């Protein structure tokens, strides 16, 4: 098994991730480090939009590994995740065999028997196999990052199927035998915690809980993505986002949305978040009818208090 270059320290991983555009906190840097050193899969859980998928992408950029992504959904089965026989091609192969045989009609029975043997060996070879993400990750010659996204969307049967891949890094195909990993892939599984994962799966993984970042860290993230935005404005924006997250919303704003909002503020050339700017642009961070009402009522009013409203602005409610 060829080994990929391994990081020497947690700090090295954190710097690498920062270079790849991902500001990791203590625990995500440490777990990424351990995952590479121990060769164990990582189960990343947390609310939607805290950068779970982004972590995998950043790891792939940082380590120079190719990213292979398996998006999970309800009803995902092994034909879509592991491999599938390309039976149309197999059928064509058999048909080609049959038409070719007409040339020698005399020894038909004998020829048929031997050609069937060879055909059978032939059609169950790797040429006739569709590789799906998991098999692709296992059989890759270069080390890869395998991202299994939203594992909680699949059913338990699928989880059980993953166990062989995750603990032994191998896949058995009945017709071909066991395919073992040539390099050890770096595996990340993400979950929104919409259902309890099985103990067996959890046992094979390191666990990382990602939560919404603190004001300071989110500010850094926003600044990283929109360096042109004025710092005090960015800070104020992040504070407002945190205020919004405090409310009981159907969908609290994610980090990606606060970055979007920062870009919007840059675009419309706002120099302060007053009530008007907020009400114009809050649909970027709040996306439910009832949430919008609530945010308008709670946060926008507060913004009105904090900054003196410009003339003629009082009628906006």
């Amino acid at each position, binding site marked *: 098994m060829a080994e990929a270059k391994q990081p020497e320290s*947690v700090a090295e991983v954190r710097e690498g991730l920062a270079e790849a555009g991902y500001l990791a906190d*203590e*625990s995500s840097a*440490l*777990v990424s*480090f*351990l995952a590479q*050193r*121990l060769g*164990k899969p990582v*189960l990343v*859980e947390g609310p939607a939009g805290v950068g779970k998928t982004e972590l995998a992408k950043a790891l792939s950029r940082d380590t120079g590994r190719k990213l292979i992504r398996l998006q999970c*959904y*309800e*009803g*995902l089965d092994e034909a879509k995740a592991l491999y599938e026989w390309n*039976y*149309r091609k197999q*059928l064509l192969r058999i048909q080609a065999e049959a038409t070719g045989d007409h040339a020698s009609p005399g020894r038909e029975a004998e020829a048929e028997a031997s050609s069937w043997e060879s055909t059978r060996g032939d059609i169950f070879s790797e040429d006739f196999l569709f590789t799906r993400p998991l098999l692709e990750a296992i059989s890759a010659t270069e080390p890869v990052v395998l991202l299994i996204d939203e594992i*909680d*969307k699949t059913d338990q049967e699928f989880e059980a199927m993953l166990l062989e891949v995750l603990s032994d890094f191998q896949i058995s195909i009945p017709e071909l035998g066991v395919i073992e990993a040539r390099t050890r892939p770096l595996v990340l599984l993400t979950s*929104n*915690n*919409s*259902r*309890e994962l099985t*103990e067996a799966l*959890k*046992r094979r*993984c*390191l*666990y*990382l*809980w990602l939560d919404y970042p603190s004001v300071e860290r989110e500010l850094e993230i926003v600044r990283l993505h929109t360096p042109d935005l004025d710092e005090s404005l960015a800070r104020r924006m992040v504070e407002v986002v945190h205020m919004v997250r405090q*409310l*009981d*919303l*159907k969908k609290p704003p994610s980090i990606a949305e606060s970055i979007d909002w920062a870009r919007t503020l840059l675009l419309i050339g706002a120099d302060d978040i007053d009530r008007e700017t907020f009400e114009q642009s809050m649909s970027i961070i709040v996306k439910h009818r*009832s949430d919008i*009402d*609530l945010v308008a009522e709670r946060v926008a009013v507060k913004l009105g208090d904090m900054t003196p409203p410009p003339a003629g602005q009082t009628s906006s409610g």
Partner: protein
Amino acid sequence: MSAPGRPAAGGVVPGAAGSLLAFFEELRTEGVAVGSSEILDAFAALDEVSWTDQRDFREALASTIAKSQEDRRVFELLFDRHFFRATEAEALEREVQEQRYEGSDRLDLDELREAIREAIAAGNDGEMRDLARLAISAFGRRGERSGVIGVDVQRIRRALELQARGGSSDGEQPALDPDEVRRFEQHLRRELERATIERTGKLPPSRPLAELDRTLPTSPTQDLAAVHRAVAQMKRRIATLGHEQRGRRRGRVVDVRRTMRTSLETGGVPLQLRYRPKRPRRPEIYVLCDVSTSVSSASVFFLSVLHALHDSFRKLRSFVFIERISEVSDIFEHERDFRAISEAISSERGVADVSGYTDYGRVWLEFGEEIAEDLGPRSTAIVLGDARTNGREPHARIFGDIAERSGRTFWLNPEPRLYWNYGDSVMAAYEPFCDGAFECWTTKHLEQFVNVIAGAPAPVE
């Protein structure tokens, strides 16, 4: 807190391994499933990180041992407690006495205050700990120690003028991060405990963790936030339910047109069957919730369940009743704050008429007259109540009619099954009309129920 007598780096030494195993054992007694493969992983992980940094040490252990958020919370609590106790036990054994700052009496309180504010603002952990000690000895000399750790912490904090909010009217002091202030308090507590242990020369007995709001709150005085936290998880689960039937192979219908179209690839042989996509069922739900005093502890829970249901099902109408019934769907639609909802329900809707005792019979009559017409085979009726009629006529037949009209009827009873039909409970009269009656007084029961309504095939389609 750096542990005396523990090697700074290198492999796992026997003493430390033993201490860790004791820690894992403690975790197990608190219900965290620590398997031996996890323990092996933990030791493998500890080989990779430096032991001198407590954060790395803790994270490495946590990521291999605690595999869910709840486990993580227990882990944090136990980690602090266990290693604090382990260190102190070790110190007692070796008769290590810490050097305390007993220096000059001119330790100026204002200077100390300033230094502490700075350390908290900078978030410097080591500094905070040292200053916490200074503060404690300063207060010890002033003779303000009460001897009760919790009280002392608050007294010291007040004397140091550390408000988390920081927004005092003079406004000169910048606001402090509440988390950092809490960390400083934690240090104070630690140091006070340490001093007590040194003075008395023995460890206080270890207690098991208090039940960490793992069960359903049973009294209405309990924090609503706890109920909400319990339901929040449910909320997500309910939201993803109903999509579950998609992708199951059972009962699919072949789409002839698309099958023929695909078969062109294989020379007209329909090798691959195409199916019509299956639409998930969108149930209409009618929830009737008893909010009388006999179920008052449960109705807090039930109301938050209603709240959660409203987020997840679009076609949901909810009703509350005591003696009369009243629709509250609009309140839930417009108001998201839970407190406001319960106030609005108790003040605006005249559900209690005279006595304030539940009158199930009358509720069915009213419901049957006003709303039952809307019920259809696609609707699901859910009753949340204890079926205690206070001796009034149950009108079970009318309830039967209602159950007949709606596709499915469920009853959730906040009492254990054992108490059903004792006293004035007439559960037996209603139960035959329901597709299912469940006891429901923990979130676990609720979860089972949700699986039934979202997962089980409907008797009427």
